[in-house]
């Protein structure tokens, strides 16, 4: 479904030097899978997402992505504050020639899916941060994407709101069966959400390790099996940092 093979990415800096961001990234993600890219801040995780979404070009290597409809959720909600919640969700649909009524109906349906029924005519600034992020998720889902890319979507929220949204994300994922690539720097978040975790090292980034989380859904916070994986991942991180 998504396959990266020996992907390298370099940026040309203003002083003429080349900055290598990604070094030899290789991984595969199967259709319908929930995968996390886990790594320290600024290691190039977001660059990988941008490459998958074809928003950026890689320097060398192969990237193959099945399906070109991609939904994106960012760290900040990135909503258009002058549009109502419904019109925000309908924004990605406007490039097609569908009628306005159909677009609205679809937007309202996905607002329901993320638990925002009754808020259709609100403006973003009238909502809390968590609710704004729900709107952003609905906007990403409304195009019925083949792949959902999420770039630290809950890191700006308080822990209680983030926990609630993680549980709902799992519910939505199980209902829709989307392929999700989730970027995070939180070990516990990655463990709670994912079937597969790809640990990304510091710049220039490589895939340090691939870990599968073999705990059935729905998962509970405080599950000991999750805790054990978290502990071993923490050890991996310490080992990864001492190697450099």
């Amino acid at each position, binding site marked *: 479904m998504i396959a990266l093979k020996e992907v390298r990415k370099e940026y040309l800096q203003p002083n003429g030097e080349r900055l290598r961001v990604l070094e030899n990234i290789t991984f595969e993600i199967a259709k319908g899978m929930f995968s996390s890219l886990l790594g320290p801040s600024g290691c190039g995780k977001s660059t990988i997402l941008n490459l998958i*979404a074809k928003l950026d070009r890689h320097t060398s290597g192969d990237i193959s992505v099945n399906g070109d409809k991609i939904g994106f959720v960012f760290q900040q909600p990135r909503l*258009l504050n*002058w549009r109502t919640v419904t019109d925000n969700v309908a*924004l990605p649909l406007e490039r097609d020639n569908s009628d306005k009524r159909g677009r609205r109906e679809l937007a309202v349906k996905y607002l329901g899916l993320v638990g925002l029924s009754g808020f259709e005519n609100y403006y973003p*600034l009238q909502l809390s941060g968590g609710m704004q992020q729900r709107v952003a998720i609905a906007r990403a889902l409304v195009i019925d994407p083949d792949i959902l890319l999420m770039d630290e979507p809950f890191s700006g929220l308080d822990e209680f709101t983030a926990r609630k949204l993680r549980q709902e994300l799992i519910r939505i994922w199980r209902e829709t069966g989307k392929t999700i690539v989730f970027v995070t720097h939180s070990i516990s978040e990655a463990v709670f959400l994912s079937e597969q975790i790809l640990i990304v090292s510091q710049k220039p980034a490589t895939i340090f390790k691939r870990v599968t989380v073999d705990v059935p859904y729905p998962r509970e916070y405080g599950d000991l099996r999750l805790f054990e994986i978290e502990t071993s991942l923490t050890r991996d991180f310490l080992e990864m940092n001492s190697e450099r």
Partner: protein
Amino acid sequence: MNTILRILSIVSLVLAWLILSFVFSPTIVPGPFAVLQAMWENVRSGQAFYHLYKTLFRVGFGLVLTMALGIAFGTAMGLSRRAEVFLESWVMVGLTLPAIVYSIICLLWFGLNDFAAIVAIGASAFPAVGISIWQGIKGMDTQLVSMGNAFKLSRGAIIRKIIFPQLLPHILAAMRYALGICWKICTTVELIGMSSGVGFMLNYWFGLFSMSQVFAWTLLFLLVMFAIEYLLFKPVEKRLTKWRNDVPIPLSA
């Protein structure tokens, strides 16, 4: 509550005027009634409409020219680093030169006509608009643009749906501000080089030492300004920024 406050503010202003008119002689501060009477005569004779029309005509086209130049300069400077470096000194020169300089130059170049007035207005008022638009673009949320790219919106759609709505409040604010400048410049141009318009009439009555007529024309001018502000700008702005008005700003925690 706000309406009462607004009315109170205007009433107290008129009261202060009334009191001053009792203290000073009518040749220095004519009272509200004498001024209203002079204004009514101007309206009845049709003079008020003719000169107001002339001034509004010049201000209107001057404003259009101001906004067109200002938006063009501001957009170029906001979007391109080269244009910014190249045009910045022009805008600074434009801002620094007194409006009277433009007025004199335009009247000498183009003659004593409406065209000269309109060009003078546009030339003196556009730098302020340009700076406002320029800063508006610089302060724009570029993350929203990359969101548009991520959802594969076309370039045109991004400009129309993401960039322009963010600029709109800046354009509106610049336009209100520009209107004020345009009025002021227009009266100056009319005073030195025109034979019609409110500025011309002010100069005319100044020559005849008629304070009540000077006040009458000034008041007429103010009333028209208020009408434009409250009947046109305020409602339009309120409609376009509805999404913001509903949210109170939490100043105290």
